[in-house]
């Protein structure tokens, strides 16, 4: 697989624990936020999204929280499994000049230990 993300911050958790991955964004005009998961050698895959008119959204085992006051986004993974090991990116979409731009954060590596 591709050796990207070697210098990313890493979150190490035990299997079965809950994981929280944080992300800060800078543009107050962003109105749509997405979490992606990237496994080695693959492109990013969608996990969950949230619009700026929401504070929380839940999916299967995942929850995204949005705090617009401090421009902070978090991804919570319940009962973390070895298959959750990957690099996680937050992305924010800004509608600028009449068009959508999608900007990614630097990413966090999640390492799940048995």
């Amino acid at each position: 697989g591709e050796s990207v993300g070697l210098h990313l911050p890493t979150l190490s958790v035990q299997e079965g624990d809950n994981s929280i991955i944080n992300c800060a964004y800078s543009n107050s005009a962003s109105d749509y936020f997405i979490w992606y998961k990237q496994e080695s050698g693959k492109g990013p895959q969608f996990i969950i999204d949230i619009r700026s008119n929401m504070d929380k959204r839940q999916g299967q085992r995942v929850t995204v929280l949005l705090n617009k006051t401090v421009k902070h986004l978090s991804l919570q993974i319940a009962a973390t499994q070895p298959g959750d090991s990957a690099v996680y990116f937050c992305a924010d979409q800004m509608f600028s000049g009449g068009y959508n731009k999608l900007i990614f954060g630097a990413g966090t590596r999640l390492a799940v230990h048995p």
Partner: protein
Amino acid sequence: DAGITQSPRHKVTETGTPVTLRCHQTENHRYMYWYRQDPGHGLRLIHYSYGVKDTDKGEVSDGYSVSRSKTEDFLLTLESATSSQTSVYFCAIKPENTEAFFGQGTRLTVV
């Protein structure tokens, strides 16, 4: 995956040579994006397109040009490849009002 294909998947080229990467979609979506991914930097936007012949620069556009002569293809060209352009390149398509879908990536090595 979501009707998006990148080619080639791997390429080694010499410094100073032109290189073109292709992104092809079967979904007829308006938005297409090119990103590069490097250790410690995540995905950085190079260029994006919002329609045929409509493109704009991203945050790391220097040394790259793009073209979109038809809806389904978005081409990324390195006019004169440099070692700093060694990277993994990802194309993405984005339907209206929903998330973007990514291709499998192209690993480019400039020697």
